[in-house]
């Protein structure tokens, strides 16, 4: 297939995934900000949301203070923020338009329908209730697009590049939450927990839709180190780093088989995956959680660069 088509498929999937992630962050933050401050909250949840979205620098060059109004506007609706939900869908649809022929009718319908709805929305909903509805709609739109791709696409390179986009973005997003919140997830002896922590932990799980999953896997109350385990090493958990890399390796292998050629992207993805498979949380805490996550983020960026070099140029 055309390199440009593969590139568009890849970024189309990435941007839809990113829009969903932003909606989850905003939803979790909204909940967290509603927790009574009598519990001793001092952190600014809205500021933390901007950091988790990975656009703190851009935000603070546009706004002085991070509060509900400025952050929701910036992350959800601002046309000036290239990673706002609105911009994500704009870029996703532009990509979809360029590869209209590589999409199934259902996928085009999903992304084009979302974009058309978004045009009607104007500068954003008027109330918190409407905003909550909007956030759910964003997640449903992403589910619809993803489900359409999963259920209607031929299993060929076009599909695999689209999947690579999903899992690259997902791995990046989960890693970024961990990077911003790692101090809440430290092992028992370092942990000084207050009642607020419970809400923080629940919010982290919610932003990757894993609150229920946690209970099913560990069958106990929220423990920060178990949350870290779930998000990093548990490959049953669809948004964990381990799961993302299991998929990345699988789809890169599919491509390599179809083209009868392995390359640096395949080798690097396998390396990262092996490292995740062989890691234990105790060791990661010993050598430093923050360092481990930092290392993963740069590894993940490197894989992105290798995929681009090998296929998308």
């Amino acid at each position, binding site marked *: *297939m055309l390199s440009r088509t593969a590139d568009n498929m890849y970024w189309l999937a990435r941007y839809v995934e990113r829009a969903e992630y932003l909606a989850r962050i905003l939803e979790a933050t909204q909940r967290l900000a509603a927790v009574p401050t009598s519990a001793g909250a001092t952190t600014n949840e809205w500021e933390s949301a901007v950091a988790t979205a990975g656009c703190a620098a851009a935000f603070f060059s546009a706004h002085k203070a991070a509060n509900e109004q400025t952050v929701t506007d910036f992350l959800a609706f601002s046309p000036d923020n290239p990673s706002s939900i609105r911009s994500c869908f704009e870029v996703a649809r532009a990509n979809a338009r360029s590869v209209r022929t590589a999409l199934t009718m259902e996928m085009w319908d999903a992304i084009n329908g979302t974009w058309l709805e978004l045009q009607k929305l104007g500068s954003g909903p008027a109330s918190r209730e409407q905003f909550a509805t909007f956030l759910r709609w964003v997640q449903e739109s992403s589910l619809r697009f993803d489900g359409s791709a999963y259920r209607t696409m031929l299993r060929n390179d076009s599909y695999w590049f689209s999947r690579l986009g999903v899992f690259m973005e997902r791995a990046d997003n989960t890693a970024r939450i961990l990077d911003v919140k790692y101090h809440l997830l430290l092992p028992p002896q370092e942990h000084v927990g207050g009642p607020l922590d419970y809400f923080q932990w629940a919010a982290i799980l919610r932003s990757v839709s894993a609150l229920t999953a946690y209970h099913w896997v560990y069958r106990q109350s929220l423990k920060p180190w178990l949350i870290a385990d779930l998000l990093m090493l548990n490959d049953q958990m669809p948004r964990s780093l381990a799961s993302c890399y299991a998929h990345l390796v699988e789809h890169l292998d599919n491509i390599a088989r179809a*083209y009868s050629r392995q390359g640096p992207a395949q080798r690097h993805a396998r390396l990262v995956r092996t490292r995740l498979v062989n890691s234990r949380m105790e060791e990661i805490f010993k050598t430093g959680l923050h360092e481990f996550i930092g290392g993963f983020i740069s590894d993940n960026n490197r894989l992105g660069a290798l995929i681009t070099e090998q296929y998308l140029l």
Partner: protein
Amino acid sequence: MSAAFDEMNGKDGLTRAAYRELAGWLGKVPPDTLQQRRREAELLFRRIGITFAVYGEAESTERLIPFDVVPRILAANEWETVKRGLEQRTKAINLYIKDIYGKREVLRAGIVPEDLVFQNPVFRPEMNGQRVPHDIYVFIAGIDIVRVDADTFYVLEDNTRTPSGVSYMLENREIMLRLFPDLFARHRVAPVENYPDELLATLRSVAPVSAAAEPTIVLLTPGIYNSAYYEHSFLADKLGIELVEGRDLIVKGEVVYMRTTEGLKRVDVIYRRIDDDFLDPLSFRPDSALGVPGIMSAYLAGNVTLTNAVGTGVADDKAVYSYMPEIVKFYLGEEPILKNVPTWRCREVEHLSYVLDNLSELVVKEVHGSGGYGMLIGPKADKLAIEAFREKLKRDPRGFIAQPTLALSTVPTLVDEGLAPRHVDLRPFVLTGRDRIRIVPGGLTRVALKSGSLVVNSSQGGGTKDTWVLDS
């Protein structure tokens, strides 16, 4: 201007045979139902994403071309005549272009004035003395036809460069089949759905001799900002070929390749929907970012077929148009089956003075214009506009031709107040391959939605209809 010929009701109000079934049905169907179907059609089109960028309307870069749910019907024998006329005309056009870039017998015989060719900006000296694969220049033509009475069809324009609109022909049929299965059950409508197959067969037949048995065919688009981008992607999809932009192609050693995820892949046939000017920055406009540097070298070396060929514009200029009946006679020795609209060439002194004396009754068009821009429709223009145009015309008579205001035929059309006659034209698509000419029955019917308007161009408020050719 006399009253227009209505294709359903004739001039005398008696329903014509081809429309009998439809007229009966329209008489019975509740008006609400039709309006309801119209809304459904609009929704379907919008969801599918048929969009159309209108030049100069920055605020709405994407807009829908209105679709009318009442079909336009042609009887089998009517279509047969049109079809033979189209084949004849296309053959003559291909011979003419070959001659212009070859022996130039038509110029020596004094049929067409030389300056009309050599001073035409779309004449491509690069093509002089070049052979193109299989001697075909115009593989895909969209020849605009209008009708003025029961028996008379005129050719209005020969679009021999990159004619568009065929996706609307196909989508219109698709939508009609969904909305009115009942109507199709009562008529024997000739299918148009095989157009992509016919186009693919045409493109495959014209691959360079050096190409592999399975030639690689691509569609070259200027990109998503082009007004016809939807059509480009639609066609590539139906044909099962790659939709490429200039940056996807690269020329090495006079061979064209596309960049794929598996490395470079050779390309044999390019259905290009990008104008000559932008095709190759090394040969034409150096500032073109849409084209492929060096593609002309590969083309002239015979390693790739471009459809349509470079330089076909010499045949669809409005000034050359007026010579087309003579051109048909010159190359084929036959009388033209399809007539030309009577045309005054303002370049000729007697013609010019006639035109200047009768501006308020004529349609005056720019020779190089398209899309219905820059023309004067005398009967609809006020004094001021006519005087302004008179000055323009006097300054550059060679730049204009004039035609009588035709009473274009009308077809019943659904408007807010109900059914009303609206003027239509027809753009059939003529495919010329190495083996034969292929034309799917019908084409794209465009309709001027404003009451009394004769301008059917979608950029100026025109809409489209499904076109039915009835099987005999």
